């Protein structure tokens, strides 16, 4: 379970102050895929980085499975798997080496790692390239390796920033299938995306974030009912228009 309550975050540089998040709130339950939907620069990545303990909120609090990200970051990290499509696995290590490395970082015993790696390799169809250097893997193989790496400590929550960004159609399907399966296993999934179709296909709940503020936050089916549509794009543009974001663009 992930609970984000009134989280604000401002980035200060020498030249300017940017309020990236303004009292952002959302909630994701186990067995649920939650989608943070918004245009580029809306604050999606910042929000997910705060959930993942990479950033600290200026105000508000984030609780992951009962642990506050500020007070118990190590406990939160133990329960979270963080993935970003920006992550480009590279180097001379094999997928297997990286899996062991991340397992060591998460202090997973060797025997458990061996067992989980086998399960993940079977599940993600990775056995053919497990020992190959990641530099020699295709984009899809790298994405599978990245997923395996982030799941080796068997997290309860997976946070995935822009899961299908830059992926071809086949790799995208692998990723979306994996997220659905993760939900079926009773895990909590939080994704960020600016692609409406991805959110429509995957998410149970969606929050629309515009200029750092949550403009809409509900179950997808309830949102459709309220806006009298079955199209998320219509909902998004109605909300954006109401918030005056389209005029600014």
């Amino acid at each position, binding site marked *: 379970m992930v609970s984000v309550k009134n989280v604000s975050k401002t980035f200060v540089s020498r030249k300017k102050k940017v309020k990236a998040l303004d009292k952002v709130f959302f909630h994701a339950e186990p067995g649920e895929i939650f989608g943070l939907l918004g245009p580029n620069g809306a604050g999606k990545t910042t929000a997910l980085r705060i959930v993942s303990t990479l950033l600290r909120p200026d105000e508000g609090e984030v609780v992951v499975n009962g642990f506050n990200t500020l007070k118990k970051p190590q406990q939160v990290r133990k329960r979270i798997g963080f993935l970003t499509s920006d992550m*480009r696995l590279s180097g001379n*290590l094999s997928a297997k080496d990286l899996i062991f490395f991340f397992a060591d970082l998460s202090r997973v015993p060797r025997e458990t790692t061996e067992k989980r790696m086998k399960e993940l390799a079977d599940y993600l169809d990775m056995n053919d390239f497990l020992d190959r250097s990641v530099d020699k893997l295709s984009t899809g193989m790298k994405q599978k390796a990245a997923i395996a790496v*982030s799941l080796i400590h068997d997290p309860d929550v997976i946070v995935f920033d822009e899961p299908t960004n830059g992926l071809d159609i086949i790799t995208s399907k692998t990723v979306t299938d994996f997220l659905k399966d993760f939900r079926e296993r009773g895990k909590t999934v939080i994704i960020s995306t600016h692609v409406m179709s991805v959110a429509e296909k995957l998410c149970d709940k969606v929050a629309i974030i515009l200029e750092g503020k949550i403009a809409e936050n509900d179950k997808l089916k309830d949102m459709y009912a309220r806006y009298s549509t079955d199209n998320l794009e219509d909902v998004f543009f109605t909300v954006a228009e109401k918030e005056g974001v389209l005029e600014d663009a």
Partner: protein
Amino acid sequence: MLKDSFVIYRKELKNMMKDRRAIFSVFILPMIILPIIFLTIGFVTSAQQRTDAETLYLVNIIGDEDGRFTEVLQDFLVFERDETRVPDYTRALESDNYIIVELEGADSDLTQVGKRLDAKIYYRSTSRRSSFAAQQVRNALNQYSSLIMSERLKALGLSLDDLNPVRTEMQDLAPEEARGTEFLAIMLPYFVLIFIFAGSMNIGLDTTAGEKERGSLAPVLVNQVSRSSIALGKVFYVMTVAVLNSFFTFVGLMVAFTLGGSEAFGGEIPVNLAGFGIGSLIALLLVLLTLAGFAASLIILVGSFARNMKEGAGYVMPFYLLAIFAGIATMNMEAVHQIHFYALPVVNSVFVMKDILTLQFFWSRFVVMFLSNLLYTSLLVLGVARLFNSEKVLNTGS
């Protein structure tokens, strides 16, 4: 914390060890490239010197009617005399092996006191061979001058020895095993310094700014290992590679000098390696370790501010140039006596290396260098750990 650092260290090192190009450039290249460079320069230099000496020059000597100077010159230069006796300045300007020597007053009796010979040498300084010939003519003129002087003295019932009442004899008290180590003391610290910083630069940037650029740092940070452990693991890794790099540079230089590569720096300079024992090598290794620790932590600290490799290279370059400057500035300096110099980073390691290489070991200097380097490295590692806890610095990559 150290156990966690070891996880990071092991992964980084394993990654590097699987990279054949990195292994070649860090370990193999210094051992091959340095002997090749030094031996090639040495070979080319001695070949040029041999060519200069064996070339047949055409010398137009004007004014040496009795041929005495021409006779002296034969001991210094392989030449033919231009019998035209008319100076051809254009040819001297265009040709590499034609020079003109004008002697004014050679026809008078130079043994007479008050008589003087004025000599002018026309050559071209931009030509190596012309310059060589001019220098040899000059040496011959000095010899000719001594000859005339001794004749004048003879007429007065004196000899050249009578003009040198002081006889000097040099007695080198340096232990025999320490003689011939000066050349190493000049060259080795400079090369070690360059290779330590150059070796640290690439991998130090790759493991900080490069990781940010690739987006592979964030998943490491979302783990149970503390940021300080991550920082320490990276410093240890860069330090290890820098030490190995400089060690193989050391081996490469030793091979080069043993095979005669020191000829590249002015002919037969003796390089004596006989005096180096285990103690010297351990002391040298400790200097390398502390210097590498300093370089590694400095580069990781600076590289952590960068968003990508390109930006990181820009940040680190001034420090690299400073290190080269320190190497050049201290190259021909002897180790200084003032103890406070041994607290200056980089310079202290150079001076202690010079001490060790010339087989003069001073505990006080070594201890001050060692402790101050440890202190600087610790402070830099603390700085790196603080940076790795700073979200402002760590989240600039993507």
